[in-house]
């Protein structure tokens, strides 16, 4: 029996194939080119022909998959599993941090390609780390039918890795971002920025530690806004570039650490 899905995608296959051949002939192709996939002869507009043929091939693949798996109908799945009812296709999963972090990682990678290699490297590292975390989450969810047990098992395995790595990565990113800001600021401005950042970080930590009853959401929001602000500042200043350094003593690089004069 030909299923509805097969009819849809096979119809698309036929239409795309027909359009490719028709387009091949009407755009300057010779007698044999369009029907021989340009093996013998020419097809005229080869870009149109290639894209339509590719679409036809994909549609044919989908049609064959569809008919082979009977459109993925629930009855077909139940019959295959030899049960009365088909299993739920997708059970709801709980909230997850990985999608948003993975998107941020991909975003950093993509923007880094344009803006600065350091941002690109950070993005790649983030994507790689999240890929491992996400994989471990999916693995642990299949350990048993007990979600709590699965989560505990996963934490036992991953916590000793996550906490030091996340801590080091967080510090590294902050250092990198703040250092870009300092390098882009004037000599005096860098001192001011460093002082402000230090005071804000220390003051914020003191404030939070002395008020343990602060709602978790507010703490998260403040930390998130601060982190994003530092990252954005780092990216923007990295894109702007460092300030001009004039070295003393001619061609020899000799940073003057005594005077702190970076001009």
């Amino acid at each position, binding site marked *: 029996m030909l*299923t*509805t*899905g097969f009819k*849809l995608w096979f*119809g*698309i296959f036929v239409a795309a194939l027909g*359009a490719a051949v*028709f387009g091949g002939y*009407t*755009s*300057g192709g010779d007698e044999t080119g369009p029907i021989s996939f340009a093996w013998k002869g020419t097809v*005229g*507009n080869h*870009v*149109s022909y290639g*894209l339509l043929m590719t*679409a036809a091939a*994909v*549609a044919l693949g*989908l049609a064959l998959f*569809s008919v082979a798996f009977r*459109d*993925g*109908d*629930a*009855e077909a799945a139940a019959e295959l599993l030899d049960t009365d009812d*088909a299993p739920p*296709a*997708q*059970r*709801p*999963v*709980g*909230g*997850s*941090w*990985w*999608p*948003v972090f*993975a*998107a*941020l990682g*991909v*975003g950093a990678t*993509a*923007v880094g*390609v*344009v*803006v600065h290699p350091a941002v690109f490297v950070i993005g790649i590292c983030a994507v790689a780390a999240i890929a491992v*975390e*996400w994989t471990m*989450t999916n693995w642990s969810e299949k350990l048993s039918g007990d979600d709590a047990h699965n989560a505990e098992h996963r*934490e036992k395995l991953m916590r000793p890795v*996550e906490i030091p790595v*996340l801590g080091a990565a967080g510090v590294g990113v902050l250092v990198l971002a703040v250092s870009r800001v300092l390098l882009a600021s004037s000599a005096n401005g860098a001192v001011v920025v460093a002082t402000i950042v230090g005071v804000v970080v220390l003051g914020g930590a003191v404030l939070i530690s002395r008020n343990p009853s602060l709602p978790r*959401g507010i703490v*998260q*929001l403040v930390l*998130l806004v601060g982190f994003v602000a530092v990252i954005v500042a780092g990216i923007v200043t990295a*894109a702007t570039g460092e300030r001009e350094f004039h070295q003393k003593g001619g061609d020899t690089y000799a940073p003057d650490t005594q005077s702190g004069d970076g001009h």
Partner: protein
Amino acid sequence: MTDTPLETDDATALERVVTSTDANTLGRYWIGAGSLTLLASLVAGVLVALERLDLGGTEVFGSADEIFQFWSAHRVGFVLLAIVPILVGLGTAVVPFQVGSDSIAFPRMAAFSFWTWLIGAATTVTGFLIDGGLGTPGAGGQRQAIALTLVGLLMVIGGLLGATVSLLTTIVCGRVAGLTLGRIPLFSWTLLVAGTFWLLTLPVLAANAVLAYVDLRGRTAVRFGAEEAIWEQLSWAFSHPQVYAFALPLVGIAFDIAPVSVRSRLATHDVVLVLTGMLGVVGFGAYAQSFFDTPGTPVMNEAIYVVGAFAAALVVLALFGGLVDALRQGVAISQSGTGNNPPAPMILSALAMLLLLAAAVVGALRAVDPFDLLATSATGAQMTLTMGAAFVGAMAGTLWWGDRIFGRVASQGLGLLAGLSAVTGVLLVGVADLFSGFKGQNDFTGASVAAAGSPDSGVDTLNLVAMVGSVLLLVGALGWFANGIRRLTGVAAPSDPWGGHTLEWAADPSAVEVTSERPLLDALENSGKTS
């Protein structure tokens, strides 16, 4: 840090927002973010329309390149940052209900797709705003900003593709027993067809963007990354026939709303399945890339392009006829005294189909060689009419399914008024730009009369009409957005305000026996309570 059922325990509001994998919530995100970018793109459209009031110079912007940046930002924003995401959001929220699934397939990937799209959209908009965009005719943009726009566009495409995969997998593999593909509601069906073509064409657009990016980032662009060439490589995605593939779900919205509104079955259900499949086929626009024309054979003058344009008009005409036929039964019921006033979503979805028909007619006219409309403002008219139709369809869809998605009631009157404003605006822009095209006005008018194609007299008045239309479209979008905000604070919605026929209106879809495409209507008729 681990994955927990955050949406049910003591997670903070921030955690709930950023970690949600619930299809309904993700659908709201798509719709909300899409509506914001819609407003931004329509503002860009109004500014460009204002600029066009004086073809001889620059009034609003500083240069022709700046006009081009906003002109192209309006098109990209309207299509890939607004209408398609809103339709994806509507699908993400509604499709699992329609097929009786507990969740969307790959819920974490669906969430990842949304966030990727959002970051990509922000990057794209930033690229446009910092003197980038998708190239300029005078090569006056910042190369790094153009690269940023291209990278943002790639992320946007990636996000849309991921969301489409989730949707299509839900439709194919998440259906309850008895709900064969031929019986799924038509909105889900049109998403299946449209999604297939999005998966076939968006990667081509991504390949175009990668090609341009790689060349742009070299020392001197050889061909693909030359600033004046980038838009030409990408423009196929924002014009005839590709826009039909993007707008296709509006047909499903209209055909899901009409039969319920007129309390009848859709006698032509199977015909609509075939016709929407055909509309998807003629909406495959990736082949129509004029940038890669073989010398002497411009693709837009080839027979395949002309045949496709006329086929689209015929298919849309047949679909429109089917819708009118379905609605005629409703008129009969109303006259017999058993019907109610036509609901706002029904009116809007019918008008959206009318706009789509107008777009298809403009598309066919544009393909007629003697009219010489291919490079004129008729191109913009066709795009505005098609994507405007999709927008009005989405307005109808959010009014129809909004109670189910948001759990709160919105004002149907305000929704109808906003929709009518948008319809009027789209029509004014479409008709004015079509006639401007006949008078020889270029699609992009630049900053001088010569750059605008030295059009015939009367084009200034038509541009004024188009500007009024742009403002009305923006007003309609603002009204729709305001109605959405009002909905968030509205009273709790009933579970089935329309007396729906399909599974999204069932309290427990697993308890419904599916033996046709209208299982709830079957249950009602079997229980002896005919509607």
